[in-house]
């Protein structure tokens, strides 16, 4: 580790803890990759009624929310990144 790294890099212990927290959220959620794929396809189907979305670029995952809710509790949250190709109104 160089001197500069000392200031910007997290310790490996912290990295381990952060990675664990993330992996446990998806382990505990019992959302298998198949179910995630089905959720993804359903999202595409619903949204496609209104906008044209880039289904290739769509990414969903279950992670820990940052606790911005009213009770400020962090819990599992579904994050979706859905690129829109064309937002123009149809017809």
């Amino acid at each position, binding site marked *: 580790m160089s001197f500069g790294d000392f200031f910007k890099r997290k310790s490996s212990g912290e990295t*381990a803890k952060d990675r664990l927290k993330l992996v446990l959220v998806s382990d*505990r959620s019992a959302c298998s990759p198949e179910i995630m794929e089905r959720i993804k396809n359903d999202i595409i189907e619903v949204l496609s009624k209104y906008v044209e979305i880039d289904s290739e670029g769509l990414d969903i995952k279950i992670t820990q929310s940052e606790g911005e809710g009213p009770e400020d509790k962090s819990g599992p949250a579904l994050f979706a990144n859905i690129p829109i190709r064309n937002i123009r109104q149809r017809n």
Partner: protein
Amino acid sequence: MGEVIVITSGKGGVGKTTTTANIGTGLAKLGKKVVLVDTDIGLRNLDVVLGLENRIVYNVVDVVEGNCKLKQALIKDKRYEGLCLLPAAQTRDKSAVTPEQMAEVAKELKEEFDYVIMDSPAGIEQGFKNAIAGADRGIIVTTPEVSAVRDADRIIGLLEANEMQDVRLVVNRLRTDMVERGDMMSAEDVVEVLGIKLIGVVPDDEQIVVATNNGEPLAGDESLAGQAYINICHRIMGEEVPYLDLRKKKGFFAKLFGKN
């Protein structure tokens, strides 16, 4: 009527058998009647860790198949009054015993002993299911590594699904020097991630290798690990014991030159 405690981890190689041997020895030293049950059929090891490998005649499979009486299969440890081992079979596999049969053995044992301690194999398959079948409470062993903690979390989920109320955690092989420089998760970090209560922290101690080489568990001796184990035994018995300062004592010259 005694209690059945399962010692399990999910991941292999984190120290389940060593922990079982030391908790058994420690509880016996504290005057309790204890039987250790090796449920790792086909890969038995608790006998060698305890130094009792030359005294096995019958094993747990013989008991469930009716080849011998339960009492005949128990090996009395002559060094510690009150400590017995029920060994696993080495030439059979996990399917030789069902969870119901193992629960029945545990039930019978807890009429005789204060503590029946089931040493679980790694994994979540049949051997694990056998080990937890008759257990009243559980002790999860983990090391402060992502793989071991992840597996421990899975095991905690499975024990909860089995309606086990009392599940506690042993953080094994902690290296305080690495924790201090931020290169290892602390016991507190592991507890925070897993969300269960601690029952002990055992330092990474060379004396454990020596003890296993000799087949003599070190619970209760003057080593740091030996002290950590005996404290776990007190906590199992429901006593409040403060946690040890696991930092290695630095000698005068090491202090002078800042070495560990």
